């Protein structure tokens, strides 16, 4: 008789787990060395607490014995924001925390993205841009280096760039939503046709179409003027703080959007030629802690351990 397991979950057997363990131990060594203390939080949280954080909506909910709605967390950033605001209410910032924990999302399961998946990440709380961002990027690169990943690059953008650009060009709220939705869907054809439908000066529409497709080396930060220049100056300040071995990994991407709602500034993703999707990512969420009553700027990232494993195996095959 076959006893099934839920869609999007899987068993991990010793051969694979040995390899996964080697990856997490390497990453843990770096987090530990850089002063990030590991925490656990419950996999189940009150749904209202997760909703307050504004992350991805939970896919799995249950009632507890008092009729309250509990949900499986969709990431670790919101639970850690809750944890910081309650357990470290008076602690002197900055706080450096890390985790190795499973999160749960209602995705279409495929190799590299199951519904239950293991993430390794850090949260650096109370460290504003640009220094905090630069530190997070540095820890990220050191952690990836420690696993033996070679060809990876970090895409770096700013979540506030496009909304700010739209505001400065006086695009109305409804139009704004439609343009941001096209950008979030990575649909530049829809973005272009939406822009054609607006009453914008030709140069403004062209700018709104061009900016989110700008990506490349440091030279792409030199061009933009006006409202874009401000966000770009922020990225330049972060880049200036990076050691050469970290700075060389960075590709600037002015159209970078993350699927989570709480990002306020710099955002980044990890790419490797051996995998067709990002290995991980993160960014600044300067307003999230405030929603839990302890307003502090913060930055963090999460790596998908399965994806990292697949990329490492892929790089190994190509050598």
């Amino acid at each position, binding site marked *: 008789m076959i006893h099934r397991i839920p869609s999007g979950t899987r068993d991990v057997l010793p051969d694979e787990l040995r390899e996964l363990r080697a990856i997490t131990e390497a990453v843990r060594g770096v987090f530990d060395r850089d002063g990030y203390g590991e925490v656990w939080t419950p996999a189940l949280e009150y749904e209202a607490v997760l909703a307050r954080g504004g992350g991805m909506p939970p896919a799995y909910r249950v009632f507890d014995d008092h009729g309250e709605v509990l949900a499986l967390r969709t990431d670790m950033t919101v639970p850690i924001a809750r944890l910081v605001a309650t357990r470290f209410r008076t602690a002197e910032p900055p706080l450096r925390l890390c985790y190795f924990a499973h999160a749960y999302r209602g995705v*279409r399961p495929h190799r590299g993205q199951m519904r239950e998946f293991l993430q390794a990440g850090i949260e650096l709380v109370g460290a504003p841009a640009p220094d905090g961002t630069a530190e997070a990027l540095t820890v990220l690169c050191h952690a990836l280096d420690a696993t033996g990943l070679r060809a990876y*690059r970090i*895409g770096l953008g700013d979540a506030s760039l496009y909304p700010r650009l739209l505001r400065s060009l006086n695009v109305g709220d409804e139009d704004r939503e439609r343009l941001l939705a096209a950008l979030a*869907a*990575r*649909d*530049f*054809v*829809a973005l*272009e046709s939406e822009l054609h439908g607006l009453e914008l000066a030709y140069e403004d529409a062209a700018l709104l179409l061009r900016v989110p*497709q700008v*990506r*490349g080396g440091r030279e792409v930060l030199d061009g933009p003027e006006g409202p874009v220049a401000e966000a770009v100056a922020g990225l330049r300040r972060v880049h200036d703080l990076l050691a050469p071995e970290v700075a060389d990994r960075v*590709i600037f*991407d002015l159209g970078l959007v993350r699927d989570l709602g709480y990002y306020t500034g710099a955002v980044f*993703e990890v*790419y*490797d*030629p051996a*995998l*067709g*999707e*990002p290995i991980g990512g993160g960014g600044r969420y300067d307003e999230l802690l405030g929603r839990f009553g302890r307003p502090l700027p913060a930055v963090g990232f999460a790596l998908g351990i399965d994806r990292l494993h697949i990329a490492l195996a892929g790089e190994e095959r190509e050598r």
Partner: protein
Amino acid sequence: MTALTIAVPRGALMRETLDLLDKLGLDTAEVRSNDRKLLFADVGVVTMRPSDVPTYVEAGAADVGITGKDVLTEQAERHVYELLDLGYGSCRMVLATVDGPDPSAEALRRLGVMRVATKYHKTAAAYFERTGRQAEIVEVKGSVELAPLTGLVEAIVDLTATGTTLRENNLVIREELFTSTARLIANPVSHKLKAAAIDAMLEKLRAP
């Protein structure tokens, strides 16, 4: 320039897609002459049915690909970048019924639900949801036109270029869902790591 792997759709979009690749300076002679071969590593071309293109591009097995908007609408959950409307392969996604009094309207009025046959069940379901009508989607694999003629369903949602097949089967277009054309799509990671090659390709394709 980093070489890109390009997913090329077989079928109706293939000839114009290959013409486009010629314009990019690729030698497509072998692709045109060899109908059985699927992988052309020398020119970086893989050929497949249009509905498989998003699958290969999403996984990074191809860096970029060309497929119809109809396919992308049906597979909206795929994580791919839609970069350019290539303009060719124009056709319409339509709701059609047999000629005469509209049987789908009557079914809706009297029975509360209309039955609709289609190969595009997600597109159709989303459309009826958006327009506030209750519809039972009947997924068929073969000729959709047969379904309303035999009484299986009251309406179909299907793709049509000229409308000839519909007319030949005594079907009339009642509503148009959207117009579809060929689109250039890219893998999200290739879009970053092979940015120069993809942008160079876009620039050539945009040139008149």
